[in-house]
């Protein structure tokens, strides 16, 4: 399967790139966003204030992803 991963703002700068494409995870069963975070970033810890969107809707790291999903990681929003 193929998952598009996006990073925004300070997290993008911290990770050093704006996106990853995670292909054929080799997992049997479902992949959670927490597992995807480790695969994509190579980091074992998840930042305290990390926000997560699955296909442009807020979700949490326990959610599972499927082929074709777009997952975004970003810090608290500061618009307006």
């Amino acid at each position: 399967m193929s998952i598009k991963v996006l990073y925004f703002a300070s997290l993008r700068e911290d990770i050093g790139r704006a996106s990853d494409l995670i292909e054929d995870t080799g997992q049997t069963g479902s992949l959670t966003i927490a597992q995807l975070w480790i695969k994509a970033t190579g980091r074992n810890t998840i930042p305290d204030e990390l926000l997560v969107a699955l296909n442009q809707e807020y979700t949490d790291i326990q959610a599972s992803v499927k082929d074709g999903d777009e997952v975004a990681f970003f810090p608290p929003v500061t618009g307006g």
Partner: protein
Amino acid sequence: MRLIKIVDTGFDPWKYQQDYQQQSMSGKTDFGATASFIGTMRDFNEGDDVSSMVLEHYPAMTEKQLNRIVDEACHKWAIQNTLIVHRVGEILPAEPIVLVAVWSAHRAAAFDACRFLMEALKHQAPFWKKENLRTGTTRWVEKNT
């Protein structure tokens, strides 16, 4: 009706309201209240002088989230029209960042919905501000007040 616009150059918040009202409410005489809010870039934040700012966003999600909060406002209050304009890219002090305007028959709905939309936008729409300080350093704004 609604109009949601993300713009990457300076915009005139009054002209936007006027044009939107002319386009969408021309000939209508059933609206009695318009509440609006304009957020403008200040040259100070958290005790520091800010010379400019860059606003980043997540385009596909921005549009979805803004539509979602407008849906929510329409569900909660009897509002007729909504206009949201948000700036992205580089912004200078005194330039408008955001405009939210709501038209309704009676004033309570317009006031309530306008404020709700601004708060929801600030807490849910995926925008991020990076400030360029007068001292030459750069920092991401970490929290929304």
